[in-house]
């Protein structure tokens, strides 16, 4: 698959458990953060976003937490399912004219049935 990478951190969870994926971002001036899911052979798929004036945002089965003090972002997936198996990237939008998205290194989530 596209994201076979010996150096990708991997999180392995049992189906039904909660997953927490962590990310450190680089630019304290970034004001918008996104989590993307990437399945093998596909493009990044938007999961959830959060603005810098918030510290928590909830979606369907997913929650994003933002700690600006330590520049840390986390993605929580409740009741993880086999279909959640993918590589997850955090990303930050840097505004320069329009904006560009800077991706983190990615974490592979493996869900055991």
């Amino acid at each position, binding site marked *: 698959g*596209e994201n076979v*990478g*010996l150096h990708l951190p991997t999180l392995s969870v049992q189906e039904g458990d909660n997953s927490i994926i962590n990310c450190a971002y680089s630019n304290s001036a970034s004001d918008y953060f996104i989590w*993307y899911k990437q399945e093998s052979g596909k493009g990044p798929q*938007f999961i959830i976003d959060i603005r810098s004036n918030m510290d928590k945002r909830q979606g369907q089965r997913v929650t994003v937490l933002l700690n600006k003090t330590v520049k840390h972002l986390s993605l929580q997936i409740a009741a993880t399912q086999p279909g959640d198996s993918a590589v997850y990237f955090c990303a930050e939008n840097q505004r*320069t*004219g329009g904006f*560009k998205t800077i*991706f983190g290194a990615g974490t592979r989530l493996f869900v055991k049935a």
Partner: protein
Amino acid sequence: EPEVTQTPSHQVTQMGQEVILRCVPISNHLYFYWYRQILGQKVEFLVSFYNNEISEKSEIFDDQFSVERPDGSNFTLKIRSTKLEDSAMYFCASYPGVTDTQYFGPGTRLTVL
């Protein structure tokens, strides 16, 4: 639901040849982007395009790369003389200019032999 499309899905070329990767962004979007992902690595920003000109480009986007919006629907990335290290997945993305969410295409896998 509207989506970004890319062609071809896989392109194989000889080193030194020119390639053109094609994208059809979502029709009412204003900003267009190219990203690349070398196997096993993170997604990297290449270039952003707005109002028929490049608004930002990364260090990767050197003189061998160019982008064009030849008509009202297509957005292309040209690599003039491909190198082995250009082998990667290339993702096109578009952004409506209202929210902060980019929409990614499925990618073109470029293999340079």
